[in-house]
Every structure is written in structure tokens, then in C-alpha cells.
């Protein structure tokens, strides 16, 4: 391959290969600069986009960015590609594909039919030609619906994960954050704990506690302890009430090995969880987290830019029919996404790319204290994502995760979004709130005073 070039007036921009075009076309971010693959001028960034816009979409089927022979994620992408589904756009360039995605012809049905025909690299490429608003508008046309005890991802709804983490996994402390969240109607995507200690007995104790809360109040939700997949598999062997199997995943085989997983291990875990038959209305039993920068931090990015390698993780996710997937955007740190501008952009890219690929994408709208961002910035991202139809967002008490030491959204934020944008939670969960008498005549969830029957019923019974 002789490489690619773009002449802009006096300047000729050369790019050695497809990887270089993709990396240079990405919006500026610290992770690609850290990897030494980012465009070094703004003009070069646009030159790369101009090259990219004229490349045929098909190129990504013929020229892989990570070798097929040595990477099982590449093999998964290529071997499972659906050529029939791809046919409607097979003749297009990346630029034409962008125009088509934004057109009225590309409606929900057309996009859903197309998903198996798209590869991660194709959607990453077209995302690089999109503005933030484009990413919102196209994603809003995609709907990916999944089921376990609730239905997540229906158009016009917004679900949430209740994240009641505690630095020592204290059961009363976790119960406190859980009950507080339920009073805000949070948790219809999942009640999910990041355990402070990753071992089997601790994991089982937390699973049993969450299951007891769920059954005591007869709440249509699913629970999850976000331990390593092998820990959860052992918990299942010992008869623990496992609804969902969680795992962090990334976009290359080497990065996944860094997480201690392979595709066959994930398949084994999925089968084990499905065999428990705990879902009442569906059997989407997997929950994955991803995030830009994870491959680079594992020294497993193979020179591919962090946004493209992130989308490859979605190919891993979709192979296992997950109930939930979310990007952790701002969590990984400023060496990958430096500030609010980069975090916002990445959150919208991740959501767009996952939805185009048919992945039920949610988002942990978040940042760490060494990133240039604050809650005002999260307000922007959460509103854009909710408008884009994000499947779910994560919420913690007062936006402060006291175990992982970062800031996400608060229970307040989710409620505010729901009421502002008229997006109720999953229908089964909404019916439960209604039956419990928690909704007002406008179907809002009002603040209940500490001395009200609603609070007494929840906290009293938890004694």
C-alpha cells in the first residue's frame, strides 16, 4: 500500500496507512497524543478527514487494522460480518455514508436492518466525520431493546443503574444508598454494586442482599455485583442468585487478556447465566463496561486510535446479546480524555457507534478529580445523551461515588432528565412505581417527606 495523501494548497499531507488516516482524523484527545499517533496540526486533522470521506466503506473489510491471524476480536468482526445486511450501503464512501445516515431514508427500521452489516471500523470512521449534533440525531433514530425483568431501551424512555457502592462493602451502607435511590425511582436498568473486595463469598453475600431487597418489595429489577467474570461463575456454581454477569471488555484480544477474559470464557459465562432462567421477560444476561483508553493503558492498541479500538469492544459485546453495555467515558483519566470537551465528544461517539452496531448502549456520565471537568459539564453530556436516546445512565447518591472516588450523576439528575424530557423509566418499573402510589397526577415522582408513609414503608421494612 502506497499510503494516502491530500493536497491542501502548498501543503501535501501524507498518511502511511489506513490506521494513520483514522488516527489523524480523530478529534484531538490526550490518549492519541500520549500514543504518539494524533495529528500534529489542526489542518492535518481535517486533511485526514478529507481522505477518509473519499474512502470506500468496503475498505474496512479488506484492510484490517489489527491482524486477523493474531487477534480473535478481528476474527469475530470479519467472520460474523453479514454481507446481505451490508448491501444497501456497500457502494458508498465514508462521506456518502454520513450523508445517508443523516437522511430521512435512514429510519429506525433501515438502521436496525443494517447493524449486522456494519463493522466497528466503519462506524468509527463515519463518526469522525460527524459533529456532536450529528452523533445525537443519528443515534436517536436507533433503538436497541433488551429484556430481563424490565425492558430497557424502548423509544421515549430513560433507564438508570443504581450504583450503591461502599468502600468496605458494608451491607447497611449499601442498603442505605439503595433505598435512597429507590425513592427517586432509580434502578430500572440494574442495581449494580462495584465490590471493594473481589472474592466469591463477598460477592455471594452482596448478591443475596440485593435479591432480598428485590423480593421483599417485589420490584421488577435485576441486580448485579460487578466482580470479575470468573468470580461470578464460581458464585453461580455455589447457587448464588446471579441475574447478570458483568465484565469489563476492550477492543483487542491482548487488552481482553489484560482483563483476564477471552471470547470463549465470556460464552461460557453467558451459557451458565442463561441456564439459571431467572429473567421473567427475556434472557439478556450479560452486562459489559468499556471505555476509551483501556487498550492503550494495557499496551494493547497496536497503533490504532483509542476511539476506533473502543468501537471494536462493541463487536465483542454484541456477540453475547447483553442486557446492558456502558462506556465509562470520563473515568479512565485525563491522560486519555483530558477535559470536558474531550469527555463530552467521546461519550457521544461511544453511544452513536454502539447503537449503529446494534449494542444496547448506556453511559456513566462521569469525571475524575484530576480531569478538567465538573458537574456543569456533566449536565451538558447527560442532556445530549438523553436526547440521543441513551439506554441508561448511572447514578450514585449526590453524584459522589465514595468507593471509586469519582463523580457520576446523582439520583436528582436522572429524575430531572426524566421529567424535563418526558422520558419515563422501563414500563414494568413504572407500573411498580404507579402501583406503590408513588407517582403524582402528572406521573412525576414527587419528593416524599421523611415522615411520609412511602418513606416509612421502604425504610421501616428494611429494619
Amino acid at each position, binding site marked *: 500500500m502506497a499510503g494516502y495523501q491530500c493536497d491542501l494548497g502548498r501543503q501535501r499531507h501524507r498518511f502511511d496507512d489506513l490506521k494513520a488516516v483514522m488516527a489523524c482524523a480523530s478529534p484531538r484527545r490526550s490518549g492519541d497524543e500520549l500514543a504518539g499517533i494524533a495529528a500534529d496540526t489542526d489542518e492535518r486533522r481535517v486533511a485526514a478527514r478529507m481522505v477518509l470521506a473519499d474512502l470506500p466503506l468496503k475498505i474496512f473489510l479488506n484492510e484490517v487494522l489489527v491482524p486477523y491471524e493474531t487477534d480473535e476480536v478481528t476474527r469475530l468482526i470479519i467472520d460474523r460480518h453479514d454481507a446481505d445486511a451490508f448491501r444497501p450501503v456497500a457502494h458508498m464512501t465514508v462521506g456518502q455514508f454520513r450523508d445517508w445516515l443523516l437522511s430521512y431514508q435512514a429510519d429506525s427500521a433501515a438502521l436496525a436492518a443494517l447493524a449486522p452489516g456494519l463493522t466497528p471500523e466503519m462506524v468509527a470512521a463515519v463518526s469522525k466525520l460527524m459533529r456532536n449534533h450529528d452523533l445525537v440525531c443519528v443515534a436517536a433514530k436507533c433503538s436497541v431493546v433488551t429484556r430481563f425483568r424490565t425492558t430497557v431501551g424502548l423509544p421515549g424512555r430513560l433507564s438508570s443503574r443504581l450504583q450503591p457502592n461502599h468502600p468496605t462493602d458494608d451491607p447497611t451502607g449499601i442498603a442505605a*444508598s439503595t433505598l435512597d435511590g429507590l425513592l427517586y425511582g432509580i434502578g430500572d436498568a440494574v442495581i449494580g454494586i462495584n465490590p471493594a473486595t473481589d472474592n466469591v463469598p463477598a460477592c455471594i453475600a452482596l448478591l443475596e442482599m440485593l435479591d432480598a431487597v428485590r423480593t421483599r418489595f417485589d420490584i421488577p429489577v435485576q441486580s448485579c455485583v460487578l466482580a470479575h467474570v470468573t468470580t461470578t461463575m464460581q458464585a453461580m456454581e455455589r447457587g448464588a442468585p446471579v441475574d447478570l454477569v458483568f465484565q469489563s471488555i476492550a477492543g483487542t484480544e491482548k487488552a481482553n487478556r489484560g482483563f483476564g477474559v477471552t471470547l470463549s470464557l465470556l460464552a461460557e459465562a453467558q451459557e451458565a447465566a442463561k441456564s439459571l432462567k431467572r429473567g421473567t421477560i427475556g434472557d439478556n444476561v450479560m452486562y459489559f463496561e468499556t471505555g476509551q483508553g483501556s487498550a492503550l493503558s494495557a499496551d494493547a492498541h497496536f497503533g490504532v486510535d483509542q476511539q476506533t479500538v473502543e468501537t471494536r469492544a462493541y463487536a465483542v459485546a454484541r456477540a453475547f446479546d447483553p442486557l446492558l453495555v456502558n462506556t465509562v467515558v470520563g473515568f479512565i483519566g485525563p491522560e486519555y480524555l483530558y477535559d470536558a470537551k474531550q469527555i463530552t465528544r467521546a461519550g457521544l461517539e461511544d453511544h452513536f457507534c454502539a447503537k449503529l452496531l446494534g449494542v444496547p448502549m448506556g453511559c456513566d456520565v462521569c469525571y475524575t478529580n484530576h480531569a478538567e471537568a465538573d458537574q456543569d459539564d456533566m449536565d451538558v453530556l447527560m442532556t445530549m445523551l438523553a436526547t440521543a436516546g441513551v439506554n441508561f445512565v448511572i447514578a450514585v*447518591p449526590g453524584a459522589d461515588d465514595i468507593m471509586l472516588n469519582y463523580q457520576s450523576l446523582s439520583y436528582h439528575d436522572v429524575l430531572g432528565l426524566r421529567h424535563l424530557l418526558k422520558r419515563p423509566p422501563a414500563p414494568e418499573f413504572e407500573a411498580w412505581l404507579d402501583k406503590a402510589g408513588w407517582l403524582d397526577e402528572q406521573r412525576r415522582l414527587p419528593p416524599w417527606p421523611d415522615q411520609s408513609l412511602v418513606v416509612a414503608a421502604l425504610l421501616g421494612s428494611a429494619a
Partner: protein
Amino acid sequence: MSETPKDPWARFRTATRARIALGRSGDALPTKALLEFQLAHARARDAVHSAVDFDRLAAELSPLETIRVHSAAPDRPTYLRRPDLGRRLDPASAAALPAGEWDVLFVIADGLSAAAVQVNAAPLVRACTARLGHLRIGPVVLAEQARVALGDEVASAMGARLVALLVGERPGLSAAESLGVYLTWDPKPGRADSERNCISNIHSDGLSIQTAADKLCWLATEAARLKLTGVALKEDAPSLAGPDNEKNQLTDRS
């Protein structure tokens, strides 16, 4: 019903520092909770961006000898964007390090919290040296714009068999002054995180200085006996272990 109503959250508040039962103004945070959050975030950011007063730290460590070094990251913005530079010494610092033969070397790195280092580092080093009187302890190295792996280069140049690197941990809203310690046997550039033992969460509401010193000295003694640190040492002492190596999180804190 004439009695003063009880706070139904009372027993929960003692079990967690999470911001539970904040109340609501419509759907939003009440003013008091909003401002408390902003104060905590401001303190966390100040902890990240302010500089350690190393002169004061050196004075507090006296009569222990101290040596000042700087990483290859010239300033804080570079430090935050380029973790690789924070793990290496700048050439001038590297050239000035005195060679020796030490059983234990303490390196104090500013890391991500100047406040954690300013408050906790000197008392912890003093508590440890008091417990390790039988060992040859090198001069205390004070490292600016430094990450955990910088200790490997420093200790290998100075001829130390074991390095204890104290570092300001990434501040959370509820703990902006948290110190961590990483112990590495036979330190040299290229050591993996799995070859270290970590004691984390050392601050006034977390692990106390005395308990941390006990753990550190126990681990240092065991490291010298087994001639290793890392996963293999942790397995023998689960109750003294730091954070799990297998934590399922998409993060890189070193």
C-alpha cells in the same frame, strides 16, 4: 403522634459517608447540598493542582537526610497528560543520585494529592524508621511530579534492596488527603504493578499512620525474608493486603 418525629435515616447515616437523603428542591439538589458538593470538589481539585512544600517536608523529616529529585514531567499539565514522563527521572536528577547500599529506601512522591503528602508523609516515615532501626535506611528521596514507577529508577540507582514509595492518591470528594504506599523488592525500571504490594487509604478517616506503619514494616520484613513483593507475598497475608489486583475496573491509577 405528638412526639418529635424521628429521622428515619439516622441508623443509615452512621453506616455510610454516601450523600444519602439530601432532600430535593423540585428535582434538583437543595442549595445546602449543592454548595457542600462544590466545596468538596474544590478541595479535591486544589489537592491535585497545588504543590507540595518540599522544604517544609524536609524540615519535618530532619534529622533524616533528604534528597530532592524531579521527574521528566516539567509541570502539572504535562504530568497529567503524560504518565510516562512522571515515571522517569529528569537527567539532572538521575545524574545527581548517590550510589550506596541500603536495605530500605523511602521515596515520597507528590502524585495526585499534595495535601495527602504534606499531612501524612513525614509522620508515616518517622513511624516506620522507629520500627526498622535494625535496617540500613537510605536518605529520604522527595520526588516532584512523580508517579509510582519513578521509585524503581531512584532505588535501583541508589542501590536499595527494597523501596517504599509514598504517593498522594487521586482525591475523591470524601477523601482529598489520602496517601498510598507501594512496596517493591529489587526495584528496577520495568517492574510490573503485580510485583508490588500496596497499602492504600491512609488518612485521618481511613487507615491510621500507626496501623499503616505496622503493615508497611510487616510487609518490608516479609519481603526481605521471601526476597519478593507482589501477588506472592499478598497471598500469605490476606488480612494485610492492599487493593485487589483483580479488581474489575477500567482504570489505571499508577
